[in-house]
């Protein structure tokens, strides 16, 4: 019995290991290609490990495009979107969870209904709105439309509602205003949820492609994914620099992931299940 169990166990382990290898293969191959000298990239059969590590590929990729500008754009835009979304969602979620006002129910249902509409459909009218505002190809266009999310409002409202009302009463007796209560009590107590919302939003903004592609039309405004897509077309078959470029986009998210793995995974579990 014991031997059978152990056998079963090792079989499942092997299946998982092979699966993991397959899943990780594109990343492994990306890294290996990124450090290969140009003459080893197109060898057939391929050479797994480069004879020398060519770190210059990263430098080439970096210089082939105004990478610094793209990076700055991506960081700036992602941070602004994340901060904006969290701030607006916290405020709105507070109103929905703690304040009484007329039309609350109707408004909430309206918002939930809106959440069901796929964002791809909104692209056209939003593009037109922004072009009427004269905002096309600006940070405003990249950032503002994403500075709130009904889903996050919904999640945070749920979170705020789980905090016992006694805290609210206690704080009010102590002379704490609604606004102070929100920021000194509710927000710190809801940090795990806020953190997951923020981190996922950051990753999404960082990886966003279709929207930045549509609303930007000059090099100065491009974000990294858009730049990479353009670069892959212009860059031709220099796969090592292309992989180096790709890797540089993934790297910050990788690092974030390594650093905050548990929170991210928990956050996905949390946000996913409540959707």
């Amino acid at each position: 019995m014991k031997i059978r169990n152990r056998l079963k166990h090792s079989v499942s382990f092997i299946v998982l290991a092979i699966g993991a290898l397959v899943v990780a293969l594109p990343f492994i191959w990306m890294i290996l290609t990124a450090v290969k000298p140009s003459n080893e990239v197109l060898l057939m059969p391929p050479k797994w490990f480069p004879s020398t590590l060519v770190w210059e590929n990263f430098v080439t990729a970096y210089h082939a495009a105004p990478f610094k500008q793209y990076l700055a754009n991506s960081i700036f835009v992602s941070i602004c979107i994340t901060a904006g979304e969290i701030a607006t969602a916290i405020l709105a979620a507070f109103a929905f969870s703690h304040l009484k006002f007329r039309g609350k129910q109707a408004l909430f249902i309206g918002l939930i209904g809106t959440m069901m509409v796929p964002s791809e459909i909104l692209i056209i009218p939003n593009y037109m709105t922004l072009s009427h505002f004269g905002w096309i190809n600006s940070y405003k266009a990249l950032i503002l439309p994403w500075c709130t999310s009904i889903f996050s409002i919904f999640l945070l409202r749920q979170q705020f509602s789980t905090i016992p009302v006694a805290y609210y009463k206690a704080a009010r007796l102590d002379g704490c205003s609604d606004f102070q209560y929100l920021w000194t009590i509710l927000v710190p107590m809801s940090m795990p949820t806020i953190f997951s919302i923020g981190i996922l939003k950051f990753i999404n903004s960082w990886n966003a492609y279709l929207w930045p592609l549509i609303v930007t039309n000059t090099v100065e405004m491009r974000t990294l994914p858009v730049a990479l897509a353009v670069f892959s077309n212009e860059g031709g078959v220099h796969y090592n620099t292309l992989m180096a470029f790709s890797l540089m986009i993934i790297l910050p998210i990788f690092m974030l992931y390594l650093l905050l793995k548990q929170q991210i995974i928990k956050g996905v579990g949390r946000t996913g299940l409540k959707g």
Partner: protein
Amino acid sequence: MKIRLENISKQYHETLAVDDLTLHIGDGELVSLLGPSGCGKSTTLAMIAGLEMPTSGRVIFDNDIVNDVPAESRDIGMVFQNYALYPHMTVLENIMFPLKMRKISKEQRIEKAMAIARWMQLEDLVNRKPSKLSGGQQQRVAIARALVKEPKILLLDEPLSNLDARLRIELRDEIRQLQKKLKITTIFVTHDQEEAMSISDKILLMDKGVFQQYASPKEMYEKPVNTFVASFLGNPQMNLLPNDDFMDTKAKTTVGIRPEDFVVVPSKGSYQGQITSVQTLGKELYLGIQLHNEKVTACVSWDHRYDVGDTIELDIKKHHLFDAKGKRIDYEEI
């Protein structure tokens, strides 16, 4: 501070949570609001605190009508059932929070908070988070936080209900001593009659939003104004029996006899009953007795062996009479 409630009512949608309540609380008194859940005691407390607005009636502190005074300006300290200690703040930060809201300087905040922490024997715990404290310690922190701003009134909303029985008794005495020392007007909400009896100067008993009786524990126990009060106070409950078999009064009345007012006598008792059950408790015995057509509970001491099926002779030390509507009839009236 004296508190006066004048004809207070509170309506939530369809339900009347508190119905025309009038109440005077003297300076420095400890008053318990007692009643089963949903009786309106918490709503009453919330209206005193200013967390709820009465639908009608007046709340008066000393000589000021405070209906329009917001909670934070009423000079009230409050302890909640689950303590509502902020989990992300240390004990010290929790105690300092009310002072911070009053924009008191940081040095003063620490000084005052430390002073009260010392006084409440929390000194060694000030840098811990609430989750690292025992229930009793959390409770002390909550009291410290309520008292740090030196309120004129202390409100305690079922502060002991989350503690185990032993600790509850210990802290109950502690609260009582503290209150005596500070001479602060205190309102204590509870659904536990024993707790209310042991701690209060006066008890207000409510049921379904309606005032029942407001009296000292002793008076309420000895002279319950109606059958609800009679049966709510005391454990085991007072036996309430139809009068037919007992007194000679013609009126349709109810007789109330507390279990401890039965006396077992060797012979020639006024009543005869058969034991149907025997429950042994630490210091006494509860006997279930079939008395005429009624089942009653008697509370007797260990000095005799009782068995189910035994027939015993009983006398009654004291009884209460209630009219058809359940209202008390005093002896003089009979």
